[in-house]
């Protein structure tokens, strides 16, 4: 019963089997994803599917900005990314400014005409996020010129 050799052997067989199963699972998952998503891992420059080759790259934040999307960091950022970037770029969101009501009407328009789905319980946090970080500022009738890059005009 207390045979250490025997246990060692059993453990080694067990480890091999577990490893084998993990490999099969990973491979099967990859294959299934590939079947659904034929361009997965095809490394086509024109691909429109996502691929996460580098997790750190994906996750990178700089000065509170999610580098990959340009979104402001927040606990609800994953909801925003999952709901607001399947069809269009995050840039379409981050370049726009609207009040809470404005964002709601943009979402309704996308639901009515652009195949956006019902956001369910995620709608409220998404709208709060958008209104908080991408709310309007009063620009007046004409703004002062800003960000002028001064240079010497030759000749």
């Amino acid at each position: 019963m207390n045979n250490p050799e025997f246990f060692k052997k059993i453990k080694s067989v067990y480890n091999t089997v577990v490893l084998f199963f993990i490999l099969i699972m990973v491979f099967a998952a990859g294959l299934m994803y590939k079947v659904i998503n034929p361009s997965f891992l095809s490394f086509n420059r024109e691909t429109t599917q996502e691929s996460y080759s580098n997790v750190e790259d994906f996750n990178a934040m700089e000065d509170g900005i999610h580098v990959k999307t340009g979104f402001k960091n927040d606990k609800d950022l994953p909801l925003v990314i999952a709901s607001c970037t399947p069809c269009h770029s995050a840039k379409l969101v981050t370049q726009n400014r609207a009040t809470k009501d404005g964002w709601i009407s943009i979402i309704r328009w996308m639901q009515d005409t652009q195949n956006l789905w019902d956001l369910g319980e995620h709608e409220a946090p998404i709208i709060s996020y958008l209104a908080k970080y991408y709310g309007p500022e009063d620009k007046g009738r004409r703004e002062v010129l800003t960000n002028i890059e001064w240079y010497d005009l030759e000749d």
Partner: protein
Amino acid sequence: MQRRKFIRNTVLGTTASILATDFVFSETMPKGYEPLEFQDPDPYRLFEKDEGMTILNDKPWNIEAKAHLLDDKITPNKYMFIRNNGIIPKNIEASKWGLTIDGESARKTKSFTLQELKTKFKQYTYLLTLECGGNGRSEFNPPAKGNQWTVGAVSCAAWTGVRLKDVLEDVGVKSDAVYIGYHAVDTHLSGDPDKEPISRGVPIYKALQEETLLAFKMNGKDIPLAHGYPLRLVAGGWPASASGKWINRISIRNIEHDGTKMKAPAYRVPCKPVAPGEKVKDEDMCIIESMPVKSLITFPKSGAMLKQEKGLHIRGHAWAGELEVKAVEYSIDFGATWKSCNLGKPKNRLAWQHFGAEIIFPKKGYYEVWARATDVNNRSQPMLVPGWNPKGYLNNACHRIAVKIK
């Protein structure tokens, strides 16, 4: 079904765990949607654009120029703005391309190959100004939804093609025709094959103008893919959305065309002026036709510093939709006084015109050079952002550059 859902949730779960939060994926999201698009091909290389161009949006692609990049009299591809509503089509074979003319007001349905269009009809080349209806949207207050164009969604290239008029007349236009609508092969952002990203058009009188082209060349070469290869409509002086890209069908309609983005509020402004931020009913929105008078100082680039004794040469372009520009003036004192610029005639109708002036500054200091164009109907550009409208179209406010005299 269940298995697909499992995979989808697993994939999305991975996204969430990468972002290190307890994100649980919404069951309400339909299948077939990918959560992210993270490929980033170099758009400058992909579309052969200058690196000074601004990428407003990468899905769909929307790219604009800056004023000083538009200095050429004929806009080269590298400085031409890109505006897309959908996904740029792939794998286009020009040799198999065809155009079908149909619709209630077509005498018959008739198809042409691209080769037939090129050989059967006389070819014309015109310089045609194309400006996005939303150019200048970024200045509206309260802000308007959409790509936040500043000043660079305008171009004037040499377009070569056949007159739409000749092709429509070959097919036969019934007397009850009121509009034409284009159809193209770009695809909707949602991937829904039943949705057209955009299908606009023009009234029949615009379709029958001599300068309205079915174009297959831009600046003497095949049209670049992002600009509509192998065949596009070019209706100069109107919102550029009327000039459909990648078109394979034109319908002659006996009603105002009702394709995607023809209906309110797209490419429409309130029929009557409204207060900033006012809600406007769909039925009170009117289709934009000719674009308003506008000008751009393309030299020097804003931010020039120079010595007082040198004086400053400025130049740029002016255009006025269907109309000709009658005069361009400049002001260095915020509109207190205006002086005339030299102004050339358009190369052809609907081409932009070039202006220039030599400016002497009275003393050292900070100046803004403002340009103001006036069309033949005596309408001038406003110095302030013009009438607010819900979608932020038609901002033709005066362009200005900053100058410092040392």
